[in-house]
């Protein structure tokens, strides 16, 4: 077993350290996204983080609770929320998302350490429901010539594109190849991050490296990411093609927000289980729901809703797989 970091054993010092390490691991995809989608991704992220921190301070003041901005959890929420919104949205969108994420999802629905749902994802779901047009059409084609200021200014509407998952869902794999080139080229681009998508979700490799570092530092365990990714790969392989067992698991894992979701969102301490078996089941649930939404649902991508749907199951999982401390044989090992 790795170090168990359940909410109830947090002490101020270690929480701060963990949180700022997570922030550091999240930064490389953001820096790369500036070169993929332009400088406005940085602006959106800064606005998102700043408004999350501000809302956190204000709501803690309002609710007569100690202000805890310094622990960095609001910063992570802000970063993650920015990472899962499209790069071409208006700048005021993350501010509204921050109010929903921090004030409602985090402080009203439980408070720090006890919130049921992942705040960043609630923020995104709220934005999706409220601004469906902006949130589903503000995708930008990646910049390939280094002109990072191209999408600044009012002409953004004219250049929007569709995400790979959208193309795959509505037009099939051949349309995807037509748009993004041969399969090996697609894998390469998707791995590095040069594809349309949300701000911080495109670079599979940087997210993977960040996640692996967190696992190495034992801030998160391998269970949830591995079970999410394996479930998605298996189920896509089985049901994603025209006939059984002809789906493309690699593409499914590299596209959408799966990597980001598996490593940084499904592993959120407060909203994921702390026992190994429960983690595996939680991850499998997230993976299965993701595939279900991707293949059969109305939206092309389902990671966000899959995690949100599994969040309320966590208390039950914790209860079922609670270590039995007083059992005569097994209890001794734990």
């Amino acid at each position, binding site marked *: 077993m790795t170090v168990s970091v359940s909410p109830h054993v947090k002490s101020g010092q270690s929480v701060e350290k963990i949180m700022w390490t997570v922030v550091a691991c999240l930064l490389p995809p953001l820096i790369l996204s500036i070169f993929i989608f332009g400088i406005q991704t940085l602006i959106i992220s800064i606005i998102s983080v700043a408004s999350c921190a501000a809302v956190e301070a204000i709501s803690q003041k309002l609710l007569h609770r100690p202000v805890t901005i310094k622990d960095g959890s609001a910063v992570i929420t802000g970063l993650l929320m920015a990472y899962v919104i499209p790069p071409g949205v208006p700048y005021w969108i993350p501010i*509204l998302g921050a109010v929903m994420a921090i004030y*409602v999802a985090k402080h009203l629905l439980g408070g720090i350490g006890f919130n049921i749902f992942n705040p960043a994802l609630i923020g995104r779901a*709220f934005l999706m*429901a*409220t*601004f*469906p047009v902006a949130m589903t059409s503000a995708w930008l084609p990646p910049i390939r010539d280094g002109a990072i200021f191209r999408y600044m200014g009012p002409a953004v509407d004219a250049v929007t594109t569709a995400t790979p998952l959208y193309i795959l869902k509505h037009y099939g794999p051949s349309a995807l190849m037509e748009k993004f080139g041969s399969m090996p080229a697609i894998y390469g681009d998707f791995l590095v991050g040069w594809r349309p998508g949300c701000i911080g979700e495109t670079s599979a490799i940087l997210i993977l490296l960040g996640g692996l570092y967190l696992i190495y530092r034992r801030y998160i365990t391998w269970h949830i990411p591995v079970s999410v990714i394996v479930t998605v790969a298996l189920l896509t392989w089985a049901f994603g093609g025209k006939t059984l067992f002809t789906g493309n698991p690699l593409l499914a894992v590299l596209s959408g927000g799966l990597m980001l979701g598996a490593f940084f969102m499904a592993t959120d301490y407060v909203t994921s289980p702390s026992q190994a078996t429960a983690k595996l089941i939680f991850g499998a649930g997230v993976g299965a729901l993701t595939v279900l939404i991707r293949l059969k649902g109305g939206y092309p991508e389902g990671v966000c809703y899959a995690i949100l749907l599994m969040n309320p199951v966590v208390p039950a999982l914790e209860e079922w797989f609670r270590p039995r401390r007083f059992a005569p044989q097994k209890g001794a090992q734990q």
Partner: protein
Amino acid sequence: MPATTKTNFQLFTNGILNENPIFRLALSMCPAVGISTTVMNGIMLGIAVLFVQVFSSCTISLIKNYIHPRIRIPTYTLTIATWVTVIDLVLAAFLPAAYKEMGIFVKLIVAFAIITMRLEIFACKNSVTSSFWDGVGMGLGFMFGMMAIGFVRELLGMGTILGHDVLGFRPLLFFVLPAAGFFCVGIMMAMFNYVELVYNRKKRAEKR
């Protein structure tokens, strides 16, 4: 609960403020969340509930001495169902214009908790006049609650009030969706509780 000592006017205001069905009694939350998307929906459902509540309350308080206590709930359900059916049929037959707007709302009412609850805790113990005023108050209180939620949701979700464009744009589409129903009801309930808190604090301070 013994027969009420309140005056008719008190009974009337009681349903609207002190014991507002939605915000204070937390009854009939399904419609409050589900179809409170516009002010018009609130008014329509409010009228429908008002009629069914008043008719059922009066009926039950008329026959209260003949109801066997063991079967009172089935009797209430039967009474409500009868009145809903009667109102539905009469509207459909003689007021087709109103039925076009209100038909779907009337049919919903059979399953409303608020009506059964008022029959159980009020109408079966009180006189017909008191029950009538209680029914009117409850119906209007429900209508007021639905309209308040509908006002917020319609304004923020569609930028309109009663179908008239007031904002010229649609601010937050979220408020049209069912999830926002929970959101609005929760926030408004909190506001009601807060007002009560402040009011009680003031009262206590005055007493001292």
